[in-house]
């Protein structure tokens, strides 16, 4: 990479960006024309990224005939979304509310192709904490990873159902017994903040819950899958542009991801090893921590053991009922910043515009349908009932 080259590119991309700003779409004409567009995957060092990493490591993308670069790790959602917008990635995982915000607030043409995984998060408290239910969180400080996250959504759902009021205030402000102060903390800082008693609880994706369990015997107050049965968390996101210009490429990528999900489901131990620094090193964590994530929780840790949910599950089909639930829930979730775009967003219409399930249906058809993922509804195979229960 010479300096001259990057300068030339500077001019090229600023021109492209300026053009894009005018037509309100982020298309990069120069790149569309390249004969073999490689698949560029971005990820965060969390277990949510699993299907993408496994599909790459096991050569599933290559097997489909795709040119693919090694997935690139960045360290925050902001950097991931910015890099995605800048065209550095064309396929990534994102927390479901992020594409909702991108598509309807920022008017960026993104599409959700499939669910990346289900569950995979938890509310964690100190081992010596007396917090056992959402009700016990009154008057406490709780960290969430981002305002537009499943975690913020599920946390506030839990709090409001128990009659508590989520607030967003400075940490020093006084709290009434029924109020819970929420604030943003980068996930890597959450376990240390809990250990240092700066917060009373956090809700975040694994492996940070598992890390806190492993490092200082923190306790899982509630697994997210134990609140909302097999809820979506991260979804697979791409640009509209890629769908329009390279549908075959998108189909192949989704095929590979769905195939990777079946592999992860069948081989949890191997998945943990492969991701860890003792394996292919996609995540900086040791295998022992990741094994916790890929091992089902003990029955006594669960409120709904009969739901039989995995700590992190894999199921690709984006059930519209869940998308609608998320959009409706987002309207009631407190965040910092302007949320006017949510007010007149119709959940049904939003689901249609945001989610494109044609590719994942095709992939599932080839792989034996949704039954492969333990979902059987013979009359209407692509629907389900959402089970949400807060205790």
């Amino acid at each position, binding site marked *: *990479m010479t*300096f001259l080259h*990057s300068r030339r*590119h*500077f001019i090229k*991309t*600023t021109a492209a*960006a300026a053009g894009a700003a005018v037509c309100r779409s982020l298309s990069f004409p120069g790149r569309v024309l390249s004969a073999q567009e490689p698949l560029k995957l*971005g990820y965060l*060092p969390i277990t949510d990224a699993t299907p993408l990493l496994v599909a790459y490591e096991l050569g599933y993308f290559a097997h489909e005939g795709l040119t693919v670069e090694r997935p*690139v*790790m*960045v*360290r*925050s959602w*902001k*950097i991931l979304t*910015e*890099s995605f*917008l*800048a065209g*550095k990635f064309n396929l990534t995982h994102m927390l479901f509310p992020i594409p909702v915000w991108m598509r309807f607030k920022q008017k960026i043409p993104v599409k959700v192709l499939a669910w990346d995984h289900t569950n995979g998060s938890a509310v964690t408290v100190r081992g010596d904490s007396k917090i056992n239910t959402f009700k016990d969180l009154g008057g406490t400080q709780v960290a969430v990873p981002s305002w537009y996250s499943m975690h913020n959504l599920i946390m506030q759902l839990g709090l409001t159902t128990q009659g508590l009021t989520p607030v967003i205030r400075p940490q020093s402000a006084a709290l009434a017994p029924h109020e819970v102060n929420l604030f943003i903390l980068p996930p*890597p*800082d959450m*376990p*240390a903040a809990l*250990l240092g008693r700066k917060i009373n609880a956090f809700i975040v994706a694994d492996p940070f819950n598992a*890390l806190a369990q492993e*490092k*200082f015997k923190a306790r899982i107050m509630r697994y997210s899958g134990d609140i909302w049965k097999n809820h979506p968390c991260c979804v697979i996101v791409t640009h509209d542009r890629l769908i329009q210009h390279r549908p075959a490429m998108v189909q192949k990528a989704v095929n590979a991801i769905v195939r990777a999900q079946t592999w992860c489901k069948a081989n949890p131990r191997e998945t943990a090893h492969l991701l860890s620094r003792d394996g292919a090193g996609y995540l*900086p*964590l*040791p295998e022992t*921590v990741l094994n916790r994530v890929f091992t089902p929780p003990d029955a006594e840790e669960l409120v709904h053991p009969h739901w039989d949910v995995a700590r992190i599950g894999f199921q690709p089909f984006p059930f519209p009922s869940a998308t609608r639930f998320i959009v409706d829930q987002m309207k009631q979730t407190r965040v910092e910043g302007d949320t006017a775009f949510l007010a007149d967003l119709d959940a049904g219409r939003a689901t249609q515009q945001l989610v494109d399930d044609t590719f994942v249906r095709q992939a599932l058809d080839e792989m034996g349908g949704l039954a492969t993922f333990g979902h059987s509804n013979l009359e209407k195979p692509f629907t389900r009932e959402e089970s949400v229960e807060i205790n």
Partner: protein
Amino acid sequence: MRLGWKFELLGLLLFALAWVAVTHLFFSQPQHAHFKGFLPGPTLAALGDAFQSSRFWLSVFASLKRIIIGIFLAALMGLPLGILIGFFPLLRGLSYSAIQFVRMISPLSWMPIALLIFTTFESAVYFLIVMATICPIILNTAMGVTSINSQWIKMALNQGANNTQLIRTIVIPHSVPHMITSLRLALGVAWIVLVPAEFLGVSSGLGYLINDARDTMEYDRLMAMIIAIGILGFVLDRMFQKLQQMFSWS
């Protein structure tokens, strides 16, 4: 004023002693047991492990490369600009407010711009280092130029020198020590931005390893990387110092 290596060694020993004392005071208490990685014992053990791993040396190489290329690019633009700004009062007046404006902005605020306009993550990291280091380089170089004894300039003007000759024979030679000082300052700033800059999609580097250690709560490794950066920074600064001595003709 140089008191010699004995005092430097003593200073280093005192610093190490302060580290031992402070970390023992805080992190040897039972409620902080999980942070005991910050103590000298675990840190040095982790540093010893790191010295034996190829990943560490690759990271040292990657970070050094980023620092050197970043500062080189910043110097390529900053040194000539500094000379011109120092030499021409008009230019100085024009650029003053802009430089003061840019100087105060945390280089990390440029991150989204860096991601948008540069094709690779690596070049985005260079850009961040350039943004962080270019202002101290320009300002120090310009300051060096303005500190020239005005009698010299007058003398040269009396003998019919033009601006080009003035810059080549008086301004640049006089400013070289200041330029090297500016590079030494830039070095410190560059290391400061390197850790957050390696949040971007790069796969090696000392900042990257620090982020890894934070992600896994392995504070002995984190502290070991801090020590490694300290050692590298010290060595680099010493090299610049030697260079400065070669050019200090006053």
